């Protein structure tokens, strides 16, 4: 079986089970017969990409309310009937130092052979500026819980509300491999904004700005392969593209912008190159065609991430300001220049 399909089969399997709705609109995600309600709790977090407040309530009488987004636990909002919750409750955003305390809370609210319910509601606060929280993949790894229950063999039948992930006892840490779409632990805290030297509302240091004339004339000290589509695209965006680099293709190694920012973008591509390629493939409507993705809080203010692929080359950069004004125009111009 293709490993990439495992999460899909797991989800389909879960959808075929009979939904059990508890009073108040919550859902039963583990029953008295479940050996690992904790795995069901982690699965619920793992399936939460968009920001949600998840309120878990156990038949032991304890409850734990978490803010979850991007398969990460951002914050503990409330805890009832659980000991030693103070440190997590006091944290505006969960950091690595809180992981052991959070795991204890999760274990306490989801003991074996007890019913566990969840109520998911939209997050009521703005999460902009909140750091990354704790990835569920990291928590699952520490708890020796496999979030892909169908790996190896299909389960016998839908006897539980959702497929109960295996709890695997591993005497030694296993090498972790990630499939596209899996969550990946953050490898290099602190926040990238700090590492990139910019904040949500930060303006670039004067010396950090790339002189427009350099880009227009192709005179950036590191710019190579001046004729490629990606180079033409970067020039077309101009000084708003405050830091960028190209990996692969005829312009491999071309960079511009503050060295520290470029270095961190380079690290991201080195770590996430395969996953990024998969994301491009999923968005591509025509295999092998050039594509550009811009992701930002609003696109027209603040900062945005730009990522473009042309053949084997990938351009990754940070745009400051109104990306809607520049990127499409530069894309059309670059396409025309390439004929």
């Amino acid at each position, binding site marked *: 079986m293709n490993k990439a399909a495992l999460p899909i089969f797991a989800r389909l399997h879960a959808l075929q089970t009979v939904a059990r709705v508890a009073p108040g609109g919550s859902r039963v995600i583990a029953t008295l017969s479940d050996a690992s309600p904790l795995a069901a709790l982690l699965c619920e977090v793992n399936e939460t990409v968009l920001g949600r407040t998840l309120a878990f309530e156990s038949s032991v009488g304890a409850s734990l309310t978490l803010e979850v987004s991007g398969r990460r636990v951002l914050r503990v909002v409330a805890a009832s009937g659980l000991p030693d919750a103070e440190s997590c409750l006091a944290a505006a955003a969960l950091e690595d130092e809180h992981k052991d305390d959070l795991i204890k809370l999760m274990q306490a609210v989801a003991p074996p052979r007890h019913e566990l319910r969840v109520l998911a509601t939209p997050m009521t606060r703005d999460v902009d500026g909140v750091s990354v929280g704790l990835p569920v993949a990291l928590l699952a790894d520490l708890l020796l819980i496999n979030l892909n229950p169908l790996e190896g063999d299909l389960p016998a039948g839908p006897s539980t509300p959702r497929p109960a992930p295996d709890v695997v006892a591993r005497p030694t840490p296993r090498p972790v491999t990630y499939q596209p779409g*899996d969550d990946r632990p953050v490898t290099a805290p602190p926040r990238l904004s700090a590492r990139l030297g910019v904040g*949500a509302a930060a303006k670039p240091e004067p010396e950090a700005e790339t002189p427009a004339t350099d880009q227009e004339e192709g005179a950036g000290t590191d710019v190579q392969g001046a004729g490629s589509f990606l180079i033409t695209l970067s020039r077309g965006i101009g000084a708003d593209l405050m830091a960028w680099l190209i990996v692969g293709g005829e312009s491999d190694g071309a960079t511009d912008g503050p060295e520290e920012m470029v270095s961190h973008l380079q690290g991201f591509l080195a770590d996430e190159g395969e996953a990024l390629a998969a994301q491009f493939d999923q968005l591509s409507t025509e295999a092998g065609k050039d594509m550009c993705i811009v992701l930002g809080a609003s696109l027209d203010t603040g900062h945005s991430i730009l990522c473009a692929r042309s053949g084997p080359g990938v351009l990754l950069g940070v745009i400051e300001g109104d990306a809607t004004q520049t990127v499409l125009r530069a894309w059309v111009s670059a396409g025309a220049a390439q004929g």
Partner: protein
Amino acid sequence: MAISDSLGAVIKAFPQTRVVAFADLSSRMILASQGRDDVTQEFLDQLCQQARTSFDDPLFSLSVEAFGEPHSALVIGPDGVRVFLRSENEPADALCCVCDHSIDLPGFVAKIRETLDKISAGA
């Protein structure tokens, strides 16, 4: 104003728009759409999936770490421009749009953000 009227107003204001659709990203469903006649249900399903992919890792993580949670995505290809906007108040609510390259993008993004806010607010 009915949701179909709100989406229709976008098409009317920006004729380069091929389709504009309101989606619930959590259930992966397009709930309403307006656009050209040749838009199929399969295309809308694919568009909704692309919206989810746009707001997924690894670029989602990069954006979150750097600047906060992204609510806007732009995907440009040789066949056109796709714009995905998520509501800041109701993160599962999203507008998914496909446009020609000739679109006035700044004006279009402002228009669909206003439209999404109204739809999410129930106005």
